[in-house]
C-alpha cells in the first residue's frame, strides 16, 4: 500500500499483522509485544506478589497471636531483622508496610486490571493487539522494575520502610532519624511507586485508545462486554489517579534527598535534632495521596464488577439485568470517586466543615454500588445457574462485596469515624471490600479464562475445594476484625501492651488461625494452576458457551488473535436464554438473526 492512497482512507480495515510472529525466546516470552503474553506476565507478577504479600501477613498474624514466641523459620531467612525469629516492633511495621504496598499496587492493580485487561480486552473488542504494543511492553517491564526496586528494600541493611502503604509525611519525609527503614528503604519505596505510576499510565493509555479505536466492525460501544467496559472505565480512573500520585512521589523524593520542604513543616525535632526544613504541609501529602488513594480502591474493584457481570450471565444462562444501568452506575462511581478522598482525613485536622462535605458524596456513592449489587441478584433470580468454580467465585464476590460495602456506612460518617478511625474495623472493612472482593474477581477470572489462556481446563474438584475453604476462611478471618474495632483495638500495633486491649488476644488468636487456614487453602489454587497447566484436559474454543469474541477463536488464540480473519459483530454480549442455532445463546460474531431483538 503506498502512502498516498493510505492517507486518503480515514479508517482502513484493520490490516493484518505485517510481521511474522517472533521466533526467538526473548522476543516471544520476555520482551514480547503480544498483549496475550503481556497479560500473562502481569498475572505472573501478580501471583509472585500475592504469595509474597500473603507470607508477610502470616508472619504478622503469627506474631500478633503469640507475641512472645519466635516465628518459625524467620530467624533463618531474615537474621538481620528478626534474630532468633523474634519480631521486633519495627520489623512488624516494615512487614506491614510491604504487605500493604505489595498487595495494593502489585496485586490488586496489576492482576484484575493490567493482567486480565491486557489478555482479554483486545480479544473482546476484536482487535489483533493493543493500540501501542511497544508502550504495552514498556508498561509491564516498568512495573516489573518497580517491583524489584520495592523488594530490594528487604536486602539493604536498614530494611524496608515502616511508614505504612500511605507513607504519611513527615514520618516518610524526614529520613533516617524517623525510624528504621526510613533512610534508603523509604527512598526505594518512593522511587518504586513513582515508576509504578509511569507503568500504569502507559497501560491506561493503551486500554483507552484500544477500546475507542481498535474495535472490530459492528462492535459499537453498546455491544462491548461488561468486562471491557469495566477495564475502560478503570483505565480512565487510573489515568487521573496515577497522574496525581506521580507528582506526589516526585515532591516527596525531593523532600527526602534534595532538602526541599513540600511536606515538612518548621520546627520539627526528630531524634533530638531540629530539622532543617520549614513551612511544608503534611496535609498536602495526605490530600495528594488520597486523591489517588480512594480512586485506587475502584481501580482494584471495578474490574471485578466487570468480570462478575461477564461471567454471571454465562453461568446463569440469562441476560444480565439492566446492562446499561450497570455501565451508568460504574461511570457514576468513577466520577464520584474523585470527590470523596477527604473521608480518609476526617480526623486529620482539616476544616471540620470539609468533613461534612466529603461525607455526603461518600454516602451517595453507595447508591450506584447498591444498584449494581441488586442487578446481580436480579440476574441470578429465576436463572438456570450452572455451579462451577468460576460462578461460585462470582457468587462469593457478591456476598463479600455486600459485607465490605455495608461496613463502609459506619466509616463514611465523620462522627462514627471519630471512634472507629484507627481501629481494626477499618482493616476488616477494606480487606472485605477491596482485598477479598477484588481477589474473588481475580479467582473468578482465572477459572473462567484459564482455558482460553492455556488451552486446558482447570480442575473443578480442586477449584470447588479452593472456593469452599477460601469463602469460609475469608469470613472467619476478616469478620472478627470488625468486632475488634468496636472494642477499640488499634491497628498497626505489633502487640497490645495497653491495659484495655489485653482482652483482645483471644480474638486475635482466632483470626490468626483463620488466616493460616485461609492461606493454606490457597495452596490448592497453586496446585490447581500447576496441574491444570500441565495435565488439564484440552479446552474447546468455547467451554462456557459464552457470547463474547474471545470464545470465537481457538484456545489459546493464535498470535494475531483471529487467525488473519476480521471478526464482524452483529449482536450484543448479552444474548443468553434465547433460541438460536447454537442453543440457548447467540455469540456476538454470529450472523444477524431475523426477529431477534437486542436488549
Amino acid at each position: 500500500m503506498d502512502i498516498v492512497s493510505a492517507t486518503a482512507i480515514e479508517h482502513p480495515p484493520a490490516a493484518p499483522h505485517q510481521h511474522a510472529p517472533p521466533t526467538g525466546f526473548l522476543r516471544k516470552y520476555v520482551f514480547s509485544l503480544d498483549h496475550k503474553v503481556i497479560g500473562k506476565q502481569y498475572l505472573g507478577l501478580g501471583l509472585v506478589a500475592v504469595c509474597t504479600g500473603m507470607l508477610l501477613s502470616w508472619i504478622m498474624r503469627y506474631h500478633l497471636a503469640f507475641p512472645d514466641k519466635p516465628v518459625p523459620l524467620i530467624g533463618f531467612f531474615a537474621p538481620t531483622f528478626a534474630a532468633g525469629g523474634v519480631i521486633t516492633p519495627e520489623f512488624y511495621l516494615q512487614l506491614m508496610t510491604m504487605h500493604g504496598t505489595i498487595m495494593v499496587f502489585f496485586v490488586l492493580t496489576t492482576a484484575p486490571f493490567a493482567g486480565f485487561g491486557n489478555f482479554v480486552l483486545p480479544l473482546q473488542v476484536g482487535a489483533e493487539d493493543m493500540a501501542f504494543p511497544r508502550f504495552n511492553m514498556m508498561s509491564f517491564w516498568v512495573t516489573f522494575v518497580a517491583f524489584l526496586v520495592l523488594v530490594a528494600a528487604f536486602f539493604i541493611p536498614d530494611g524496608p520502610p515502616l511508614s505504612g502503604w500511605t507513607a504519611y509525611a513527615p514520618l516518610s519525609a524526614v529520613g533516617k532519624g524517623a525510624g528504621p527503614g526510613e533512610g534508603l528503604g523509604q527512598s526505594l519505596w518512593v522511587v518504586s511507586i513513582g515508576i509504578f505510576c509511569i507503568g500504569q499510565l502507559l497501560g491506561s493509555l493503551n486500554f483507552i485508545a484500544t477500546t475507542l479505536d481498535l474495535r472490530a466492525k459492528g462492535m459499537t460501544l453498546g455491544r462491548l462486554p461488561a468486562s471491557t467496559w469495566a477495564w475502560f472505565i478503570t483505565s480512565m480512573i487510573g489515568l487521573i489517579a496515577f497522574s496525581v500520585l506521580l507528582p506526589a512521589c516526585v515532591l516527596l523524593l525531593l523532600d527526602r534527598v534534595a532538602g526541599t520542604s513540600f511536606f515538612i513543616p518548621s520546627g520539627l525535632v526528630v531524634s533530638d535534632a531540629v530539622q532543617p526544613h520549614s513551612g511544608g504541609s503534611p496535609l498536602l501529602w495526605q490530600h495528594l495521596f488520597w486523591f489517588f488513594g480512594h480512586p485506587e480502591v475502584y481501580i482494584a474493584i471495578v474490574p471485578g464488577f466487570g468480570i462478575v457481570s461477564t461471567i454471571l450471565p454465562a453461568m446463569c444462562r440469562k441476560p444480565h439485568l439492566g446492562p446499561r444501568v450497570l455501565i451508568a452506575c460504574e461511570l457514576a462511581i468513577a466520577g464520584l470517586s474523585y470527590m470523596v478522598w477527604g473521608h480518609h482525613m476526617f480526623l486529620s485536622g482539616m476544616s471540620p466543615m470539609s468533613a461534612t462535605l466529603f461525607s455526603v458524596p461518600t454516602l451517595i456513592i453507595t447508591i450506584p454500588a447498591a444498584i449494581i449489587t441488586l442487578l446481580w441478584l436480579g440476574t441470578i433470580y429465576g436463572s438456570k445457574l450452572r455451579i462451577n468454580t468460576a460462578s461460585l467465585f462470582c457468587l462469593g464476590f457478591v456476598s463479600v462485596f455486600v459485607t465490605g460495602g455495608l461496613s463502609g456506612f459506619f466509616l463514611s460518617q465523620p462522627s462514627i469515624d471519630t471512634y472507629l478511625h484507627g481501629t481494626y474495623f477499618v482493616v476488616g472493612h477494606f480487606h472485605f471490600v477491596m482485598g477479598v472482593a477484588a481477589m474473588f474477581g481475580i479467582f473468578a477470572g482465572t477459572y473462567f479464562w484459564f482455558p482460553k489462556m492455556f488451552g486446558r481446563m482447570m480442575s473443578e474438584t480442586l477449584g470447588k475445594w479452593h472456593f469452599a475453604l477460601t469463602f469460609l476462611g475469608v469470613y472467619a478471618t476478616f469478620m472478627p476484625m470488625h468486632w475488634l474495632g468496636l472494642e477499640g483495638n488499634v491497628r498497626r500495633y505489633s502487640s497490645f501492651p495497653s491495659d484495655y486491649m489485653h482482652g483482645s488476644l483471644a480474638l486475635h488468636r482466632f483470626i490468626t488461625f483463620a488466616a493460616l487456614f485461609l492461606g493454606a487453602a490457597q495452596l490448592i489454587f497453586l496446585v490447581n494452576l500447576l496441574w491444570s497447566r500441565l495435565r488439564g484436559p484440552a479446552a474447546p474454543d468455547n467451554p462456557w458457551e459464552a457470547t463474547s469474541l474471545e470464545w470465537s477463536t481457538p484456545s489459546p488464540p493464535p498470535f494475531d488473535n483471529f487467525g488473519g480473519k476480521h471478526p464482524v459483530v452483529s449482536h450484543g454480549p448479552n444474548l443468553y436464554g434465547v433460541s438460536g442455532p447454537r442453543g440457548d445463546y447467540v455469540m456476538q460474531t454470529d450472523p444477524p438473526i431475523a426477529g431477534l431483538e437486542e436488549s
Partner: protein
Amino acid sequence: MGKIFAAAVTIIAVASAAVFAAHIWWLPPDISALGLRIDSQISETMIFTGTLFVAAQLALATFVWQSTGRAGAIRVFPGGPMPMVALATVIVGVEVLSLIFIGTKVWANIFLAPVEANALHIDVQAGQFAFYFRYPGPDGKFGVPHPELIDEGNSNFFGLDPKNDTAARDDIVSASLVVPVDQPVLLTMHSKDVGHSLFIPQLRLQQDFVPGLVIPVQFTATGIKKTEIVCTQLCGLGHYNMRAYFEVLSKADYAKWLQDQAGQ
C-alpha cells in the same frame, strides 16, 4: 454445591449479625457528654446496615438455592432493572440523607461548637513515643514553646524558656492527662516530630496530631475513671507502646492533684 453455598451464606450472615446484635464485642462504656449521641448513631447505623446485610445475603442464598440446576425457561426479574434502581435509590437514599442529617449534627457538636468560656485549657504535645500535657499554672498563661530548646534529658519536653519567659515558669507538665469531672476541657494539640493521634475510647474521642498545626478539640468527661490514651496514627517503631494515662477526678481530687504537681 449451589445449595451448600446458599446454606453457608445463610449461616454466616445470621451468625455474624447475631454477634453484632448481642454486643459480645462492643464499645467500652461511655463517660463523655457527647459519646451517647455517637453511640446511638452507631446503633442506628448498625440496625440499618445489619438489616440490609441479612436481607442481601438471604436474597443471594435464596436465589442461588432456587436457580441451581433449574430446568425450564428463565424468568426475568419482575419489572426489569428499574424497580431495582428505584429500590436502591429510595432505601439507601433515604437512609443516606438521614445519616447525613444526624451525623452532621453530632459532628458539629464535637468539632464546630464554640469554645466554652469556662473550659480548662490543656496543651498537648505528641512526640516519638510519648504524650505530654501542659497546664498553664496559677497565672493561667502558657509559656511560648521553642523547638530548639527541647531537651528531653532535662525534662524540658516543650522547649520552654523559664529564664526569659515569665509565663513559662509556672507551667505544669504531666505525663498523664488528668481532668476534673463534668468540666469542659479544651485540648490544643501539636506534634513535636511526626504525625500522631490521640484516642480515648471511653470518650469516643480521636484526633490526629499534624506536625505544623495546632488543633483544638473539646470534651467533657462525665464519669470518674482511670483509663488510657493510645496513639492511633502510625508514628514509628514505638507506635504500639505510645500511651498515657487518662484520669478523671472529682473536682476536689483534681485541685489536690494540681497542687501536688505545682509543688514538684
